[in-house]
């Protein structure tokens, strides 16, 4: 099957700054795809290049096999939901939604009928005569969606679509966007800096940093098997422990502790071991089960934070502090600052990442 979007060797330079650095990416038809990264990582520039709002300095962009790198935005079969929506303030909701169809010279009655249907689909029926300034943030967001989707784009591009909404509305819209995408079967490519949002909505996520594509994968892969320190740190909370590879199955921490942790890296490579706080078990000193003895450390509780559903411990292990998340159930054992403890983890939960 041809990819909905195929990006090959795309680089974008603004004067001396490399905004996107030779990125290769394939987005499948019908996929909900997230471009995730901190601000300035090149994710928005990548999206704008797919839309045609920027032209790549090098490389090729295809949409369903057709090279679009040479086309201006109005000739590309994609539409965009802009950050802050970019609704035309001087036009009614209906005029906003039907704008694309009017520009494509679609018959007027057809354009109107289609637009009204789309306005209904995003649950704004009856508001077609209002101006954008008379709508709430969430409603504006729906208009922006309708305005893009009414043109039946082959790919829908969304630039931080939920960034301007408050938390509750954002969660609602996440579900709604997701079901809309399933219903329409169109590929959605959306840009976000919010990793939880990316996790919740996407089939696959591409993590970008400093213009480079670091990792592409399902939310599970990205979370559990990050390929490098940045991804591990950016996605969720994690403990990163500096180490050196000893052999295929072992690493040596900076204080000399030898731990069992398989890694594909050459012996002698400096790496980091990523350990999610919730993957670490905590118990009184010496209570480490035998099967975990090769993956355990000893330390003392430095501080305790009660979260309601869980308890976060900061455990001082000699030269580092480990964040450990323990259960807060009534029967569960609890520790206090100063307690001597052991921590251990399952052999499958640690993960060695390149520096």
């Amino acid at each position, binding site marked *: 099957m041809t990819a909905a979007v195929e990006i090959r060797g795309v680089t974008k330079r603004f004067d001396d700054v490399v905004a996107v650095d030779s990125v290769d990416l394939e987005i499948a038809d019908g996929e909900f795809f997230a471009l995730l990264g901190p601000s300035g990582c090149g994710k928005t520039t990548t999206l704008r290049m797919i*839309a*045609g*709002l920027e032209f790549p300095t090098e490389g090729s962009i295809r949409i369903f096999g057709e090279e679009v790198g040479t086309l*201006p*935005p*109005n000739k590309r079969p*994609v*539409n*965009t939901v*802009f*950050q*802050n929506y*970019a*609704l*035309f*303030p*001087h036009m009614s909701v209906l005029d906003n939604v039907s*704008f*694309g169809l009017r*520009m*494509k010279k679609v018959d007027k009655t057809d354009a109107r009928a289609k637009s009204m249907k789309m306005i209904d689909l995003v649950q704004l029926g009856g508001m077609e005569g209002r*101006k954008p*300034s008379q709508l709430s943030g969430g409603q504006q967001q729906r208009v922006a969606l309708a*305005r*893009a989707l009414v*043109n039946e784009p082959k790919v829908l591009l969304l630039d931080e679509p939920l960034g301007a909404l408050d938390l509750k509305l954002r969660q609602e819209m996440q579900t709604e966007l997701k079901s809309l995408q399933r219903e329409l079967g169109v590929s959605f490519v959306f840009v976000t800096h919010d990793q939880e949002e990316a996790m919740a909505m996407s089939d696959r996520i591409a993590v970008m940093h400093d213009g480079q594509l670091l990792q592409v994968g399902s939310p599970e892969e990205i979370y559990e098997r990050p390929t490098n320190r940045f991804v591990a740190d950016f996605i969720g909370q994690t403990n990163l422990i500096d180490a050196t590879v000893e052999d295929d199955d072992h690493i040596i921490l900076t204080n000399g502790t030898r731990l069992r942790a398989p890694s594909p890296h050459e012996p002698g490579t400096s790496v980091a071991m990523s350990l999610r706080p919730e993957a670490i078990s905590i118990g009184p000193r010496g209570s480490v089960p035998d099967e975990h003895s090769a993956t355990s450390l000893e330390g003392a509780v430095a501080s305790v934070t009660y979260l309601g559903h869980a308890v976060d411990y900061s455990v001082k292990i000699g030269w580092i502090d480990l964040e450990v998340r323990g259960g807060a159930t009534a029967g569960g054992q609890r520790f206090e600052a100063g307690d001597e403890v052991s921590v251990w983890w399952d052999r499958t939960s640690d993960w060695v990442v390149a520096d």
Partner: protein
Amino acid sequence: MSGGVRQLRGGTRSALSLNAALVYLFFYAPILLLIFYSFSDDDLVGRWGGFTLDWYRAFGRNDEVQSALSVSIRVALISTVVSVVLGTMAALALERYRFRGNRIFDALLYLPVIVPDVTMAVMMLLFFTWSIDVVNTSFGLSLGKGISTVALSHIAFSISFVSIVVRARLAGMTQTLEEAAQDLYASQWQAFRHVTLPLIMPGVIGGGLLALTLSLDDVVITQFAAGPGSTTLPVYVFGLIRRGVSPLINAVSVVMLAASVLLVLLSLLAQRARGGSVT
């Protein structure tokens, strides 16, 4: 913002109110008195001699005033239309594009706003004297200064004012709107026609009214750029005033004043009608 520091204390408050009242008195008393005396049936300008409309009738009958008025209107309309078109184009170019020499152009475009009237007048006099001389000798013509030179000089300063006003409006409008239009299949021309132009319209209208006002206000530049038969109303009235005041000037002044006020109200209405935020 009620309460806090914005609420002034008693003494300060009354002193400031008094100052404000005096400022408004200062602004409006002369204008209102001028209007009052323009209806006075007395040959002395500042004395009340009963109500009359004679001076306005004289205004209507006076051929010189009428021809000066017609010159003023023609010059104002030409210079407004041309400077609105050129000034808006310049504003778009400077606010939305980078091109060779854009910095020099930017600086150059501010100069007519800064240069004093008298200097501008001198510039026009010397330039038209020199250039007409050059044109006449090289093509064997006998051109002279006239309405066209007056209009040309008015355009020279109005372009700058229009472009400043339009640029302010453009700067407040995010470029994303134009991108959104293009993303929705609009060509660059369509994006301009359907999105940019309607949104900068208040700026364009405001700039146009400013150009109109400046053209109708100008005395000294016009005086230097004018030739026989191209005396505008302000230049004519200025000449009259220098020879001495007369009740006729009162009436002409009130008409000019009314035109100005009408323009202000129009510009306010234009802003009100399209005042929506653009960001």
